[in-house]
């Protein structure tokens, strides 16, 4: 009885958690000017209710299923991984929306509506148990992210940034369609946990499809560049989409389908190496950036690389912990960047000197975030990424070394932020207000969420440390994971501190670190995000556009003209037939008629009316008949 009640409320809570933000979000989007005033409070209230529901479903663990298409129900369920992810996303959304009440001044209804729609999509993604449900959440997430990145639609550049993000991730999403086909053809069914049972080559199709889709969403190599363009969006959008949700969902999906990657044999090592290389290369990209949001974006790709690496080496516990800790840390840093952008009108690092001193609450919070990002002990990312790397070491020393190098790069780019924001504002090398008119104020409502997130960034490392890590592993259904020995944990902590010190030294030694003489080729390569977007344009976009224009011309000039030509030919045949008709058939008939008429004229001449002429004629005919008779006989 109690179980039944529990079940009902659990399923209801799960459905509500999806439908409530979706419905309120849709209403806000369509509400027009009437919804403008109440949009922010309504959205915050909705998300707060969502937070309660998220806790409900995390405790009650409901599973729901509704018939969707034949053989593939729309299934949602909450297990430990889902519970953690859903709570995380709803929590960060709530904080970001609170921040946004002070940051978003115009078109609030559309902004908050889209954020709520996005939230609903993420909840579906994070609790989907079947491919159709996953695809629904997955792609709606992409569409709303397009609308959010291009939120300031008057600026076509920003809308184009959204389009780049959407199209790149959708290109990767095609993998999920292929995986769905493989699920049917391989007779495994469309449940995510059944995919490893796909038969024969279809297993590899399914694994490849899911892997590609997840790598696209998680902004891993070679798809990373879309995240750079996504920075055209408002900062609160980046804080949610590019920390806890969207990109994180790519990592989440790989953690979820770990058994599938394992079963294929090749997909797990592929994921591990792509994750490790992304962590390394995008770490270098981050270090080369001179725009704070670009730096943070590249860092997001790099940090998600650790999650992808975790999925590849079956470090589910460490990967989950890193996903959560990174979400808090990066949301914090993006919000801080947004607060500074709103106040100072710029996000260029050379202009941000001394901002931490100017707004100490934001500054200290951001410092906690940056130190965590650097991997300084005992803050969160130090422990979580080591939890991943320790397992990687069991697989391959090379993976571990690449991961460790990526850690050093993380300390370097985090150090770069720290040095800039704490040095004297007199050292600023660029003017303020280069992107928008700054307000010179950071609202109190913007500061509160930063403090909460900073607390998270500081302490969430416990998820990867004993004794909590054993509880987490147990809840995830995993064996107790290896925790790094003093050498690994201590070593990486020391490494972080050493790199931070080096950065401090390097940036003091060179007074103008942002304008080194001529940038070397490697630096230029890193600054331009490895040239990935340019390469995509050269290899995919431009050929596709050229092909489309060529085909459009072909359609008009060849295909359509062929049809018109056939019609013209028919017309010409018709004209020819008409000529033959008039000049041939009809003329022959006319000639025949003329002949008959002439003949008639001759015959008429015989009709004289004189009787003796007729007698004479009769005699002539009679004579002719006699002659004929004689001759024939």
């Amino acid at each position, binding site marked *: 009885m109690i179980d039944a009640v529990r079940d009902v409320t659990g399923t209801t809570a799960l459905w509500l958690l999806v439908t409530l933000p979706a419905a309120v979000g849709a209403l806000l*989007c*369509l509400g*027009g000017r009437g919804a403008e005033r109440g949009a922010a409070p309504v959205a915050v209230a909705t998300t707060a209710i969502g937070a309660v529901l998220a806790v409900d479903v995390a405790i009650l663990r409901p599973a729901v299923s509704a*018939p*969707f*298409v*034949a*053989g*593939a129900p729309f299934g949602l369920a909450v297990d430990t991984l889902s519970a953690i992810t859903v709570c995380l996303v709803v929590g960060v959304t709530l904080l970001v929306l609170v921040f946004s009440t002070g940051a978003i001044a115009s078109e609030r209804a559309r902004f908050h509506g889209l954020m709520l729609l996005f939230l609903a999509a993420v909840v579906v993604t994070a609790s989907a148990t079947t491919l*159709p449900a996953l*695809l*629904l*959440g*997955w*792609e*709606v997430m992409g*569409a709303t992210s*397009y*609308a959010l990145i*291009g939120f300031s*639609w*008057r*600026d*076509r550049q920003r*809308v*184009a940034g959204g*389009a780049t993000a*959407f*199209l790149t991730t*959708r*290109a990767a999403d*095609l993998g999920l*369609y*292929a995986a*769905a*086909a*493989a*699920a*049917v*053809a391989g007779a495994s069914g469309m449940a995510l946990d059944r995919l490893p049972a796909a038969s024969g080559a279809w297993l590899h199709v399914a694994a490849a499809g899911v892997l590609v889709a997840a790598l696209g969403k998680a902004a891993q190599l070679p798809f990373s560049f879309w995240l750079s363009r996504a920075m055209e969006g408002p900062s609160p959008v980046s804080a949610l989409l590019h920390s806890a949700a969207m990109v994180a969902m790519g990592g989440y999906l790989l953690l979820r389908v770990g058994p599938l990657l394992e079963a294929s044999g090749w997909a797990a090592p592929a994921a591990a190496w792509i994750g490790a290389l992304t962590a390394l290369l995008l770490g270098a990209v981050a270090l080369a950036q001179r725009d704070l949001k670009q730096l943070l974006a590249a860092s997001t790709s790099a940090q998600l690389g650790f999650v992808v690496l975790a999925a590849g080496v079956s470090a589910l516990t460490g990967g989950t912990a890193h996903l959560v800790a990174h979400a808090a840390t990066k949301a914090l840093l993006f919000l801080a960047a947004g607060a500074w952008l709103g106040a100072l009108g710029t996000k260029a690092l050379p202009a941000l000197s001394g901002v931490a001193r100017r707004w100490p609450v934001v500054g200290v919070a951001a410092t906690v975030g940056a130190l965590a990002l650097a991997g300084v002990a005992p803050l969160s990312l130090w422990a979580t990424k080591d939890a991943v790397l320790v397992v990687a070491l069991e697989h391959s020393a090379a993976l571990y070394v690449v991961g460790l190098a990526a850690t050093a790069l993380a300390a370097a780019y985090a150090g770069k932020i720290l040095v800039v924001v704490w040095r004297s504002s007199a050292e600023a090398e660029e003017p303020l207000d280069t992107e928008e008119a700054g307000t010179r104020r950071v609202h109190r409502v913007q500061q509160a969420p930063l403090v909460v997130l900073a607390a998270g960034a500081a302490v969430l490392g416990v998820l990867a440390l004993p004794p909590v890590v054993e509880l987490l592993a147990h809840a995830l259904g995993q064996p107790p994971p290896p925790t790094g020995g003093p050498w690994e944990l201590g070593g990486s902590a020391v490494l972080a501190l050493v790199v931070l010190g080096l950065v401090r030294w390097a940036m003091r030694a060179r007074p103008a670190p942002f304008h080194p003489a001529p940038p070397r080729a490697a630096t230029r390569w890193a600054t331009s995000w490895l040239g990935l977007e340019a390469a995509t344009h050269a290899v995919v976009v431009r050929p*596709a*556009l050229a*092909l*489309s*224009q*060529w*085909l*459009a*011309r072909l*359609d008009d000039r060849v*295909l*359509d003209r062929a*049809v018109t030509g056939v*019609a013209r030919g028919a017309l010409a045949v018709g004209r020819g037939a008409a000529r033959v008709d008039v000049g041939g058939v009809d003329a022959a008939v006319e000639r025949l008629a003329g002949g008959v008429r002439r003949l008639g004229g001759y015959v008429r001449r015989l009709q004289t009316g004189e009787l003796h002429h007729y007698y004479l004629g009769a005699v002539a005919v009679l004579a002719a008949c006699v002659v004929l008779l004689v001759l024939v006989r």
Partner: protein
Amino acid sequence: MLSIVVFLPLAAAVVLAAARGLPDAVARWAWVAVAAVDLALVGVVWAGYRTPPPGALAWSEQVPWIPGVNSSYHVGVDGLSLPLVALTAVVFLACAVYALREERRPRAQAALFLFLQTTCLGLFVAADLILFFLFFDLSIVAMYFVIGGWGHGDPARSALKFFLYTFLGSLALLAGFIGLYVAASPHTFDMVALAAAPPLTGAPVGGGLVLAAVLVGLAVKTPTVPFHTWLPPAHTDAPAVGSAVLAGVLLKMGTYGFVRIAMPMLPAAWRAWAWVIVVVGVVSVLYGAFVALGQTDLKRMIAYTSVNHMGYVVLGVGAAGLVAGADAATRQVAVTGAVTQMVAHGLITGALFLLVGVLRDRAGTYDMASFGGLARPAPRFATLFAVAAFASLGLPGFVGFVAEFQVFVGTIAAVPAAALALPGILVTAALFLRALQSVFTGPAEATTEGFGDLRRVEVWSVAPLLGLALLFGVLPRPLLDVIEPAAQAVTSMVGR
């Protein structure tokens, strides 16, 4: 009951055509009222619909008509036709509402569209080949007058091209029908009888020839590459309501013919030539998408996306014939997707064409480069167009996804090479985002100032179409519960 649904609009058309002194306003509202009543009647039919046994029809009526050739007035609905009948009623009502602002000869237009509605409904309920052919040709005639009488640009030429091309197609169709009649024993034009005992099963050459005739006729109407070139000029020069009906309903006559006539009546030939149909489907998907991407005229672009979207239908029905490739359940998914795609395309592209009509109404052009920043003066227009664009590019949550997902899953499982068509949904996404970006965002162009936002009748004609696309996208079961048994029946008929 079905006869009332079919001929009520015709009766109203006759009355409207005869009532010379009728005020324009009365004529416009009379059209809306008749379309609404007809939709309500279709609702009654849907509510009373019980899935008939395979091969049979619900709500069927049969009256002898031309007994000399075994042709009767035979109508009925099943899971293939009922959704299309409902779609027809919905699209025509939306057009009636949209046309409440029509200034040019509204009485004649109302009469013509009501006549056209009868031909469309009649075609979808027809269970006799002669009846089918009659409605097929009458719809061409009516659409010729719609384009020629209310079009713009070079309507006479476009209308003539449309008429001649599709009429030629219908002749091929007629030749195929006669082939079926001659081969059937006893000779009959009755579709139920022909499907129950398909002729020409043991005659690969004869069956192939008859199928070729039928396919060419239907491919022109659908249209598939390379028979599609009548479509862009017809759409570009047709009035908005004409385009909506042409894309939303008339194109479905071609694809409906595949599932209603070609597949059940020529199963052996269909299986033999299924790979050709799949290839044509893949080519149509990719070619339509890329050519659409190459357009600068928004209405032409949407016209070409129809080639792309109909390509998914062709792909799905083609896969149904690849018996060796997959089991019946998989092929059935493809067919279900194809039929769902017909409904999805009707709702979504119908809405898109009504929306695009607004551009010409306000600014006199469809050229994308002439517009910019329209989201500022016309936020409602921008919102609805964005929703329609995302629905059309197959975003989950709209019915187009339900359709394309099933088509892809069923088709790729049956013939893995069909995965080549997957980039079609990416190209479609690119072209719609580019259009949105060019028309609605960025700096204002000369046309932007004073661009009037959607009026109430425009919202009320478009929004319900998109609402239905959303409803069936989120809750597809009411639709799929009707389609799936019929798709199963067709799949097993093809497998005979």
